[in-house]
């Protein structure tokens, strides 16, 4: 058990170091996130009532798109330089090593994304209930995005064409978007959002349990 925890943290640390050394890859999807959100007030006028209604939805949809962009690179270099080969032939379960990589992705991409989302929510004058609902749904939803995304990336790795990835991932993200937006809309009118949060939490638990296994299996298929 201790040995497994140790290797988990070794891989996590490795990926965090790599992410912070490659700043362009880290920052570009986040910049994309910010810029797309900023485009909407420019298009609709910053004080329109329509925009106020749309803001939380815009933030969520843009978060999905930015996640798609950032996920593309999660396994690419590891696949090209033979690291995945070494992972899959090590004595440790590939599932465990892949989990560490996904956690590293969530920590380096989604945590800054959540912070930026809250900040833009405040700037675009969302109500405090809406902002707290946005925060909780992003906190529960973004790990699922990383986990489900990782499976798809593993399946399409080495194939040409980044569009394919988005086409495969975005439909799988729909449930998360639906429950999150329901929660935010309910929060905006002062209703309870417990049911939606339970659903999101349920999906998260399911994804944490199954997605690393599926990702590891997909990587093994790509290797052979």
């Amino acid at each position, binding site marked *: 058990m201790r040995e497994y925890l140790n290797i988990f943290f*070794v891989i996590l640390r*490795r990926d965090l170091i790599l992410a912070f050394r490659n700043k362009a890859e880290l920052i570009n999807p986040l910049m994309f996130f910010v810029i797309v959100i900023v485009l909407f007030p420019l298009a609709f006028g910053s004080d329109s009532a329509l925009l106020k209604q749309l803001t939380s939805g815009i933030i969520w949809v843009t978060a999905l798109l930015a996640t798609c962009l950032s996920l593309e690179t999660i396994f690419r270099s590891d696949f090209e*330089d*033979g*690291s995945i*080969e*070494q992972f899959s032939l090590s004595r440790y379960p590939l599932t465990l090593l892949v989990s560490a990589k996904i956690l590293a992705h969530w920590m380096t991409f989604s945590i800054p994304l959540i912070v930026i989302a809250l900040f833009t929510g405040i700037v675009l004058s969302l109500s405090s209930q809406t902002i707290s609902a946005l925060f909780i749904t992003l906190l529960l939803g973004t790990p699922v995005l990383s986990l489900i995304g990782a499976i798809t990336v593993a399946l399409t790795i080495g194939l040409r064409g980044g569009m394919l990835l988005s086409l495969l991932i975005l439909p799988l993200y729909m449930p998360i978007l639906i429950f999150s937006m329901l929660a935010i809309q309910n929060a905006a009118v002062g209703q309870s959002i417990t049911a939606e949060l339970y659903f999101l939490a349920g999906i998260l638990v399911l994804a944490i349990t199954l997605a690393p296994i599926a990702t590891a299996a997909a990587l093994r298929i790509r*290797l052979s």
Partner: protein
Amino acid sequence: MSKFNVNNLECIRRDNILFQNLNFDLEDGGLLQIDGVNGSGKSSLLQMCAGLIQATEGEVRWNGEDINDCRYQFQSDIRYFGHTNGVKAGLTALENMHVMYALSGAKTAIDYSFVLKQIGLEGMEDILVSRMSAGQKRRVGLSRFFMSGSSLWLLDEPFNALDKDGKIIIEQLIVNHCREGGMVIFATHQSIEIESYPLQHVHLGQHNQTTHHA
């Protein structure tokens, strides 16, 4: 006492039979060289031996058990080195070695600077691998073989990109491992002379492979 057997192995790639009915056995201290022209299936054979790809026919056995039935034990006992070095360009030599060491599952402590000295990269601990030459990257990748904890080594073209000194270091490493009772299977198209140790050969190509003891 460990045993590695390849029974009746067949490899088909793009409707071409690369090899068929391939058999060889390896016991403690065994050293086997796979040679053949480009595209004759050397890498495929090594990948099959490592269990990375499944053979279309035949089986690979470790201590008498099919490797697919004893994956944990088998993967604890082997170390594979492919065309790619398996090192991260964005990490330093030392950070790469930390990861390799952790993945190897070796229990004994290791002196990293001593390993670097042995592999000919003395004092390069903190240099990013991306700034190294092709041969130096290869050496960083090969440093995983200086960490104990595996008996069967599978090396695919280990001498690629290495200079004369590098080749001697790796030849020495291989021979020493066999002397200590380990097993090594390596593939190369280069003519190398390991004269100090009895070598088994597998020739691939035109699917008339032969096995003989030198």
